[in-house]
């Protein structure tokens, strides 16, 4: 009795049992500071590309951690790697490397 009749419309929830954690694991392995993000949003607030587009690093990191990776590739390719987020992060996340690792993982797993 798992599917409560929602067979026509897919539910919006993050089904954590089923989401794809490979990207998250790849990034965790290669850039450990990925773990210490507290999603404060300073990175997104200061983002150079954020002036022109919807790129939100906080959102990308949070969704990657949850395994919900749809549409991330299009967003992350807007990053200019300028480094303002790195300079603003209060936790010391190596944001630029996190972005590069996420891109590498997306390419590797063909998402």
């Amino acid at each position, binding site marked *: 009795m798992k599917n409560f009749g929602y067979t026509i419309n897919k539910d919006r929830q993050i089904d954590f049992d089923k989401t794809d954690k490979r990207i998250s694991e790849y990034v965790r392995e290669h850039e450990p500071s990925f773990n210490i993000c*507290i*999603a*404060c*949003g*300073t*990175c*997104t*607030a*200061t983002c150079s590309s*954020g002036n022109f587009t*919807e790129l*939100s690093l*906080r*959102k990308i990191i949070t969704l990657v951690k949850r395994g919900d990776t749809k549409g991330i590739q299009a967003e992350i390719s807007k990053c200019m790697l300028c480094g*303002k987020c790195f*300079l*603003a*992060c*209060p*936790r*010391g996340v190596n944001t630029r490397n996190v972005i590069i690792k996420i891109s590498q993982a997306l390419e590797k797993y063909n998402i």
Partner: protein
Amino acid sequence: MKKRVTIIGGGIAGMETATYLASMGYETTLLEKSNEIGGHLLNWEKLFPTMRLGKDVVNFIDRGIELSKTNVIKNADIIDAKKAGNIFSVKLSDGRTFESDAVVVATGYDLFDARKKEEYGYGIYDNVITSAELEILLTKEKHVLTPTGKVPKRVGFVHCVGSRDEKVGNVYCSKVCCVTAVKQSIEIKEKNPDAEVFCFYMDMRMFGMHFESLYKQAQEKSGVNFIRGRLSEACENMDGSILVKVEDTLAGKPLRMSIDLLVLMVGMVPSEGTKKIGNMLGLNFGANGFLKSQDQHSLSVVSNVPGVFFTGCCVSPRTINNVFADSRSAAIMTASYIEGYPIEKRIAELK
């Protein structure tokens, strides 16, 4: 001969410790570098969570000093402090030396210099002030005005300025700023009922008794708006108001707004006096620059030098009721040390 204790630092921590040590019969000297005792609390109008007057607590502590007959020395500029054998000597610049059998360090905290976080504009734009400056405005004024003399239509509070921030070198939480922000936002609404008040936070640390209900009161009765998002930078508009850039993380979108008065919740850093006295006496410093206790749980007022105890914010950020508890505990431990209680033995067993 009567046993003597020197207490370095005339804020509320030092004062309360002095009161109890003096009342226990020790010859107690309280050294304070400025020309009044009471420390930072002198500049605080109302205290969380009950909004009672800070003045009441100051008077209570002052009374304690009066009743205990502590020897209070103001304008004391300490140039040396050392231990020879079992006797401590603290030397002042005017030549006086105070010898004692124990020393209590209560040198407290300084506020984080918000100029170091220059992207927030303190010291650059007129309408950016710190929480301490706001508190003074709250004690003096009927209505709160911006530094440029306007009545603010929007007031913004920025949490965690100089705390939890690896980029300025302070990674710890300063404990009291979140609840202070809530308190001050309620006060602003009382003084300027037509103003809109916003709090930009990373987390809401409402750990103490009644803190959570204060938070709820701020939302419910005062209509304060809480936005989860940490400020990345602030700029100045043509009219002098501050334009803040933040990501509204809960809504998932970047947000900008013009604020007439921006208040930075500056954290606590170890004071200059703490560093100076700590180095003179050979005390250990912890990772964040505060003084290090022998044991975080059971010996928080005991230092690595036998006979030197500490209390108050020189060890870590504390609330006022913590400071009362600390100071009385420091008084007891100092007294028992002087009376010969083998603290060292107990410490050794802990390891």
